[in-house]
């Protein structure tokens, strides 16, 4: 008997009728996949949020560094406009940038 003949006989011996589908098993797997999808999306959102907050932290640190390096000018009176290059104005601008970065709406939400 050749190998092909043996293979054919083994195939005939081991052949089985088609297995019956199990809808409960399929539903369970799909439910697990749904849970996995929700978890992946939540993780993506969390990473994006960590990234934004790291950026905000860098902005705040940069503010401190810049403020520390600027020479302090004469104190402005109550009615005077703040010069744009003053430490206080720079602080306000950077604070605005920080708020914009932190509160930027996420596309996933």
């Amino acid at each position, binding site marked *: 008997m050749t*190998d092909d003949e043996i293979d054919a*006989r083994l195939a005939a*011996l081991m052949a089985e009728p*088609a297995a*019956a589908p199990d809808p409960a098993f*399929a539903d369970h797997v799909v439910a697990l996949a749904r849970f996995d999808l929700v978890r992946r999306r939540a993780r993506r959102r969390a990473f994006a949020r960590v990234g934004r907050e790291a950026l905000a932290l860098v902005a705040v640190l940069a503010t401190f560094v810049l403020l520390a390096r600027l020479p302090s000018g004469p104190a402005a009176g109550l009615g005077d406009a703040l010069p744009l290059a003053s430490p206080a104005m720079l602080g306000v601008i950077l604070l605005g940038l920080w708020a914009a970065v932190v509160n930027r709406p996420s596309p996933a939400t």
Partner: protein
Amino acid sequence: MNPGEEAELVRRAAGDDLAAFAALVRVHEAPLRRYLTRLAGDEGDDLAQETLLAAWRALGQWRGEGNFGGWLRAIATRRFLDRRRRRRPQTQALAGLDVAAPCDGRDRRIAIDRALARLPERERAVALLLFAEGHSHSEAAAILAVPLGTLKSIAARARLALIPLLEGVAP
């Protein structure tokens, strides 16, 4: 389901379309569970679930070469072999059993299962892919990620071990 429809479902499922994934699961779960039950015994359903979830996470990696069922079997077989590698083989416990096939259908099924259980894991996987599932040698080699020559060597050993099953069975 034709290959084009299946490829489209896979593409949609890879884009997180759960309905498309559910359709794929309904088509493939029964044959996959049958293959894994014969390969891994009681762990079959557990492995099938693990395989389908792994496939869900890796759908984007399926390049559409070969059929999707073959890709699932590749994942399933790898996971089965990984599990077995982590523990001692259980084949020795069945070494003393008679594997010659009795004529009665149910007994024959038991004899086949015993004979398969006695085979080392890779030979069992090859025997199932070639004889029970009807894959060609090259398809089985692709599923198991081994060279064709290696696959043929494993198949020859499996064939030799299963020949006693043919005793008493009319050709």
